[in-house]
């Protein structure tokens, strides 16, 4: 099993050292094992858990929600009903987001292909002209 120092984890996951310590303090991460000198040693399991936290944060889940999701992740069979329900709700949110992103990807891919193919004009500019640029403050 691999072991990582806090600095390595920070670089690997682009999370600050303070954030890593904070997650441990509030219990999002179980107490990280330490060397005799007191230096933290993160395991692969810790890394996996941190990656999950990062992904969930990108989906705008709160730290409290992430805590519940982690309980489900740890022991899906014995999770409490409310945690199961929360996970189900979050799954639905993720699916909606994936659908929206998929549509956006298709739209952007089409526009990029049109721009690449046409020397005389660019549909992206046509669309911006039609819809107008976002107002700036």
């Amino acid at each position: 099993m691999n072991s990582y120092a806090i600095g390595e984890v920070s670089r690997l996951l682009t999370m600050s050292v303070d954030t890593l310590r904070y997650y441990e303090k509030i219990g999002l991460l179980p107490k990280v094992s330490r060397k005799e000198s007191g230096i933290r040693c993160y395991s692969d399991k810790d890394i996996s858990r941190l990656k999950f936290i990062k992904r969930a944060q990108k989906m705008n889940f709160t730290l409290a929600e992430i805590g519940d999701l982690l309980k489900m992740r740890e022991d899906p069979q014995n999770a409490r009903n409310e945690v199961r329900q929360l996970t189900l709700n979050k799954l639905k949110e993720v699916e909606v987001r994936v659908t929206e992103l998929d549509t956006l990807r298709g739209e952007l891919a089409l526009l990029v292909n049109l721009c690449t193919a046409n020397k005389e004009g660019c549909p992206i500019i046509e669309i911006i002209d039609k819809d107008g640029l976002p107002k700036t403050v």
Partner: protein
Amino acid sequence: MNVKTVDIEVFSSSVCNRCQRASLMVSALLEEQAFDTITWREINVVEEIDYAVAHAVLSTPTIVIGGTQRFTTLPSEQKLRDAIQDYMSHVRSGNE
């Protein structure tokens, strides 16, 4: 025998020469074969981008026959004719 209407959709953009050729080819082909049950329309992907994305159109011209994407570039006249006839035969066999 009732033959189901074949909808042909030509997804095009305003500055695409091949798109014009695709539309002309479809139009001429349907006239020549006298399939009066077949309807077709040209769709400008910039004006109907949501519709184009819903049909997974990524380039122009794209030709959709009976709801299925059949060509993502300008086909030869023969290939287009074959595709329409192929679809019509499926429709006919479904109606029998």
